[in-house]
Each structure stands twice: as structure tokens, then as C-alpha cells.
């Protein structure tokens, strides 16, 4: 968030609006992140909201938070791990966390949120030429057949095929590891 520092200072002074802005910006992603540990939506909602309640109750210290994103990620992660411990369940990450605590902590900090992944894919799609993107989206997102696209746009079928192939080639090269994700997201 751009004005994160100012928002944190406002929060530390008791500005509830600042808390709401953070909540609106991160809630969905944090909830999905909690969902990677605990599969019950209600429990995840409870945990995620409680993290913000705690943040509010200790808001005086909020000005000292360096990155709200990392702070919230860790708080949600800790709350999830505690909940699993309380329920006497093992986290699938437990072994890794015990074996490589620093790596685990760093990678948590680098965790790519659902929306961030979507943004990356969106950014990649934006780099396609308008005609490539049009054919690609009609085909992959709207599920139109290549022949239908050709008829709709009044262009040769061969051109449609070419544009989609170009788009795929570009995305594969550009997204590298994320390409697999795109494949899953778009059901290519």
C-alpha cells in the first residue's frame, strides 16, 4: 500500500478508518492464506478477524510496524499454527518449519497472495498485443471456439489460430513458473 506508513501512524493514534483500510486490502488474501492451514472457513474467518482485533487493541505500537503485509501474514500464520496445536493437529508445514526455520520464515514473508498472483497474470496478459489478447480471452476465458471467434471478428480462422498460439508462446516465456498456474487458473 502506498501510504502505508501514514496509515500505520494514523492507526497508532486510534484512527479506526486506517484499520478498516488495512482490513479491506488484506482480508480476502489473509483468509485464503489461513485456508492453506485450516480448511474450515468459519474458523479461518474467526482467526483472521481476531488478528485485526488484536492489531486494534495494540494499536499504540502500530507505528513501529515495518511492513503491515509481513506483520499480518505472520500473525495469521501463528494464529493458525496455534489453533492446529490446540486441536492437536499437525500442520503439513511442521516438519519443514522445524527443519529449516529461517527458510520457512523467509518464504512466508515472500508468500504470494491470491490477488497478487492474479495481478501477475493480468500484467502478463496486458503485454499481449490487443488482437492477440482479444482472441486469447475469447477462446480461453469465454470458451468460444476458434471458428466462432473467426466468424465474430470476421477474420480468417488461420489468423485466430496464429494469434492464440502467439499469445500462449509469449505467456509461457514470460511467466515461466507461473505459466503452470495460468494453465490451472484458465483451464488451458
Amino acid at each position: 500500500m502506498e501510504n502505508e506508513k501514514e496509515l500505520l501512524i494514523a492507526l497508532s493514534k486510534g484512527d479506526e478508518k486506517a484499520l478498516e483500510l488495512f482490513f479491506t486490502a488484506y482480508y480476502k488474501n489473509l483468509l485464503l492464506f489461513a485456508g492453506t492451514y485450516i480448511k474450515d472457513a468459519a474458523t479461518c474467518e474467526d482467526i483472521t478477524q481476531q488478528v485485526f482485533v488484536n492489531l486494534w487493541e495494540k494499536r499504540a505500537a502500530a507505528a513501529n510496524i515495518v511492513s503491515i503485509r509481513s506483520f499480518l501474514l505472520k500473525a495469521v500464520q501463528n494464529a493458525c499454527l496455534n489453533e492446529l496445536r490446540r486441536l492437536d493437529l499437525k500442520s503439513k508445514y511442521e516438519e519443514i518449519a522445524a527443519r529449516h526455520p529461517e527458510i520457512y520464515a523467509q518464504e512466508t514473508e515472500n508468500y504470494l497472495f491470491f490477488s497478487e498472483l492474479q495481478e501477475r497474470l493480468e500484467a502478463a496478459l496486458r503485454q499481449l498485443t490487443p488482437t492477440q489478447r482479444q482472441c486469447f480471452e475469447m477462446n480461453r476465458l469465454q470458451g468460444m471456439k476458434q471458428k466462432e471467434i473467426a466468424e465474430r471478428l470476421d477474420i480468417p480462422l488461420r489468423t485466430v489460430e496464429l494469434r492464440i498460439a502467439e499469445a500462449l508462446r509469449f505467456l509461457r516465456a514470460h511467466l515461466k513458473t507461473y505459466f503452470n498456474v495460468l494453465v490451472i487458473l484458465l483451464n488451458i
Partner: protein
Amino acid sequence: MQDKNQYIDELITRYFESQATPSELEELDCWLQEDERNMRQFLRRQNLYDATHPAFPPESIDTLRALRALKTRLRRSRRIVLWKRAAAAVAAIALVAGCVWLFAPRRHNPERPRQLAETVRPADTTLAVKLTLPTGEEIFLSKTERRDIVADSGTVAKVDHSGLAYKPQTTDTDSVVYHELSVPRGSDFFLELSDGTRLWLNAETTVRYPIRFARGERRIFVDGEAYLEVKRDTASPFSVMLAGSEITVLGTSFNVNSYPERSEAQVTLVSGKVNVRDSESGKGLTLRPGEQALIPRAEGGIHKRKVDTRLYCGWKDGVLVFKSNTMEEILRTLARQYDVEIYWHDESLKQYTFSGELKRYDSIDTLLRMIEHTDNVRFTVHGRQVIVARP
């Protein structure tokens, strides 16, 4: 190399999907041990896999609804029934932020109390507990900010997470100085007076009391609903002035309710003994534990009956007990305690009755869902509005 990478990716995916064979698992484990970078790669893959296989549909997440729930929670976080979980989360956040809080401004920072008054914006003042001083000065209290209440003679009371507590009185006083405390809708508050008498104040309640009692008489004024535990002092009888009636007690626990929508004021005695007198008609009676006095507003007069005190005093412990109460009564209670407005799609629903015990959960949604389960009504929540309709 490219092939090897792709193979590992496939292996990791099979592992995530629980389809890897034991030999593949072993292979994966070896690869992970080989190099730290492999572990990073694995965790990133897991991140991508998790992000693309959400535990619940991302489009089903309603951030605005959650924000409303959060706001309710901020106001009544002390009431969270899942306190164990809350405690766990607090421990977690403390762990994360331990070093951060260490350098946080401490509460003896003289800036703090002034900041509190400034940061309560006008829109919020209707939601904050308000203390009015004899000078007319208004102080908005928050349980999350500790502060001292200062009168001409020095600090007389402290506010903290548990409520507002006046210092015990050490000397006799001749001049009686009153403070007035108002609890808004959607809130409740705890007050301890200088004589040690304790009051639980329900939503939309105002109480006026001396900061120090004069010798021989303790008198306070209550408008709304309160539960009192009066400190016994035979030399100074305690009396509560409640909407045209006077309740005189020695040492006892009882609930008073004079909410305006009621046609009668109620005094419910839990323990001890109280005298209730209607000041208009001058009629009075004595209550024993388990008895309730009813003082009708219109005609004056007073009578009593036996009741289950939990029905009238449960709110103080965070339990709402209903016994064949009409939907209208129940929703009025909830509206006041959760600061919501009720819209009746169908007026005939008001007469439905409901019995049951509800915990004051952190969200009104939970309560409404429970009522929905047992009765022929359906609630739709839009912001602070609750629409009541037939299913």
C-alpha cells in the same frame, strides 16, 4: 536441466495431490535434502499450488460483511465466547511483535489521555461511553485506553479494560459532586463506585452518582437497565432512583430496568432484601430473592411476582435467556445491544415467541442464525439493518 525441473515440478504436484507413490516420496525427500534452494523451490511451488487451490471459493469471500463483523467485534471483543482461541491468537501476535511492543509508548506517557479525547471523531461519539463532569465537560471512555479521571481533589477514578472504577473514599465529604455516565446502544459498561458498589450497565443506560458519598446517605439515579451489587453499609442506606420509583437497600444484588418501551419499570432481586416504593402513589413493598417488583408507568401503584431471575439478569453474564418472549421483545433487546435497526417485513411475525438461551456471541449473525433454526422467520442483514421476513 529443464526436463529435470519439469519432472520435479510434476513430482511436487503429485505430492500435493496426495498421488505420489512411496518411492516418489523418497525421491522428493532426497531432492529436498540436496540443497537449500530446493526447499525454497518446494515452498514456492506450494505457495502457487495453495493460491490456485483455495480451501474455499475466493468469490464467496465477502470482505464488506466481514468488515461489519469486525466492527461489532471491536466493540464487544471482551464478549468473545471463543476466548480460548482469542487467547491463542493474542499469544501469537505477541510472539510476532514482541520486540515491536517493547518500544511502544508506555501508558504513563502524558500525551495519551489527551489524545484519546481528540481521536474520538464526532461520528463515533454516539458509540462511545460518555462521562459528563459537573463542569459539563464530556469525556469519551474506551476500555482499550487506560486513563485517569481527575477532579479538583486529584485522581478520583481510573478507566481500564474492565471499566470505570472510583477510588475508595477515605474521608467524609460534605459537598456531593455528581458524575454522569452514559452507555450508548450496542455497548455495555462496568462501573465501581467509591463505596465499592458495583454496577453493570446495559446499552442505552445513563447513571448519575456522587463521586464520593455524603455520610449517612448513598443515592444514585438510573435510567435504563443496570445490575447492581451494593456494598453493605448499615450506617448509610443505598437508594436507587428509577423512573419515578425509589429502591432502598442495605447490601444486595438486583437488576433494575426502566427502558422506555416498557409499560412498567422492573426491579428483580437476586439476593438480599430491598424496599421498592413508588414515589407517585407512595405505595411500597419488600422484595425477597427471586421476586420482581413491577411499577406501571401510567396508573402508578406497584405489585410483585415470582420470576426466574436469570431471564432478567443473564445479560450481565453475557447470556440472553428467553422464555416464550415475543420476537418483538427479543429483537428489541438485540437491536439495543448490537446497535442495529429492525425492519419488519411482516408485522405478524412480531407475535411469534421464542424460548432459548443465547450467548452474546461476537456477531449478531450467529444469534440470528440460531433463532432462524428454531422458528419460522428469516433474517437478512444489510449493514446495521436487520430485515425480518417469512422464510
